[in-house]
């Protein structure tokens, strides 16, 4: 999940993420890294605990929103801050992943922005032989 695999996009009100990868799986993983970089300093998170995620969806767009919403929910709803993600399988209707991280600790983890939600605004999923690209905007 190298940082160069995603970039943060500007929007008058909020922020977006554009992530790339050799496969769509990798682009989805990099989008998660982008989201986490907006929330916190990823380096401060120890991969102490693993969680298994399985999501079903109607299409890739829906799946990308659900995937990032899941990571956001783990942080905001269960105080579990994700540091690393690994997608095990990805199809247009299903995603399985192992994410690792640790319980959120205000003394250990600095936070940058509260992300309200993941949106469909200008959402893009591009699959080409040369590589894949996803774009998503967050409501801050």
């Amino acid at each position: 999940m190298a940082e160069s695999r995603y970039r943060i996009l500007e929007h008058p009100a909020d922020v977006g993420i554009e992530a790339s990868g050799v496969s769509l799986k990798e682009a989805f993983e990099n989008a998660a890294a982008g989201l986490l970089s907006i929330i916190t300093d990823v380096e401060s998170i120890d991969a102490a605990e693993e969680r298994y995620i399985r999501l079903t969806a109607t299409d890739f767009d829906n799946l990308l929103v659900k995937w990032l919403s899941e990571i956001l929910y783990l942080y905001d709803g269960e105080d579990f801050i994700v540091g690393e993600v690994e997608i095990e399988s990805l199809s247009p209707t299903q995603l399985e992943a192992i994410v690792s991280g640790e319980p959120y600790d205000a003394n250990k983890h600095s936070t940058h922005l509260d992300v309200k939600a993941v949106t469909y605004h200008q959402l893009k999923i591009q699959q080409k032989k040369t590589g894949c690209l996803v774009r998503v905007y967050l409501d801050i």
Partner: protein
Amino acid sequence: MLKKIAEHRYVIPKSFREGMTIEGLIYANDELIRQIEKDETLAQVANVATLPGLVGRSLAMPDAHQGYGFAIGGVAAADMDKGVISAGGVGFDINCGVRLLVSDFTLEEVKPKLDALLNQMFRDIPCGTGKKGVVGLNYEQLDDVLRNGAHWAAKNGYGTSADLEHIEETGRLASADPTAVSNRAKHRGRDQLGTLGSGNHFAEVQYVSEVFDDEAAQTFCLRQGHIVVMIHSGSRGLGHQVCTDYLEIMQSAMRKYNIQIVDRQLACVPIKSPEGQNYLRAMAAAANFAFANRQMMSHWTREAFAKVLGRGNLHVVYDVCHNIAKEEVHTVDGAERRVLVHRKGATRAFPKHRPELPKDYFEVGQPVLIPGSMGTCSYVLVGTEKAMEETFGSSCHGAGRAMSRHAAKKNITAEQLIKELKAKGVTVRGASKSGLTEEKPEAYKDVSQVVEVVHDAGIARKVAKLIPIGVIKG
């Protein structure tokens, strides 16, 4: 394409895009319309005009800017029988809103103790990213909050029942049903009750610098040179999750109702459908969470005043929702109709003699609270008949962002910004340094221009101008 039909009014004709069933109408002056044209606001106002069962026009206020699906600053009314409800038309931060408290202290009395007051407020009002509230609630208690909103807060020692009279809907939407709210939303919200949040949310100590309308100002207890406190906050993670959940539910259900939309973020269902009714019950619950939230922060503000200045007898001027859908009766094409008014970054602006008004404001109208960007001024306006005729009783909600967060951070550090604001007479306490620079005044449109347009167009009337002296930022 844009047609100026009258002073401060620009129409987007139905020919703007395929599928528009009603026109768009934007309130702006020449400069603001140029800013509005720079982003996707016009397209979004037009997209909203394609939703089924809308009446009147798809509106945008002068503070409008690009949002998600709906533009921020958008108003749209749907026929109760034939129309749709869109979760995106309310937004992620359900019942994000503004409350104004007025004190009997003058500027001169507070100034010497301002630092101590801000420190106390900053200690007592939990704010910033990842900040938890101090009120531990079990899920049964949370359901009570969701059902009763500010009434729950007043009953549990946060303020008094007298406060409730001066809140939109008395701080409780009776249609709220906690069972329509997912466990996920409750998990996100449970620890966040009584927290300010981050981003553009704030608590500001201000003074009344100018009075434009003596009768209304007197009715609202706003006296020149007196100290007021403005609180801008919403329903936190609970509301955000309710919107996320119902966007998903609405997207799946749309096929069943044969609804086609032009932007996925506009997902909607018939108001009368089970999904639509469930959303409205969940939205009302999230709105109540936000009402309780602002009620609790008002209580801590009063305590901070009492600790530092000896008395904390601030009273509530009013509390308005910015992001909400409300069932209301409006006259459309000469006939009275029950409609669901989506206000996405817009404020209700009802005139005098409306039954929804508090008794003591009945002869004047509803206070419309317009916060400016950090360190600039804010305004109190009052609702008008014109707003009833043209905008479903709605007006603007603030300055409106003009610059991205990233662009705002360029060329300025938090230290420089704090110094600049200090030179202007505004002391800042901020939980996040990067958060502060993202909210610098220049990142927003000029609130005074926005208010002038609203005032000149007659969709709200200026009552008083408020100047900040201290800001608490998340």
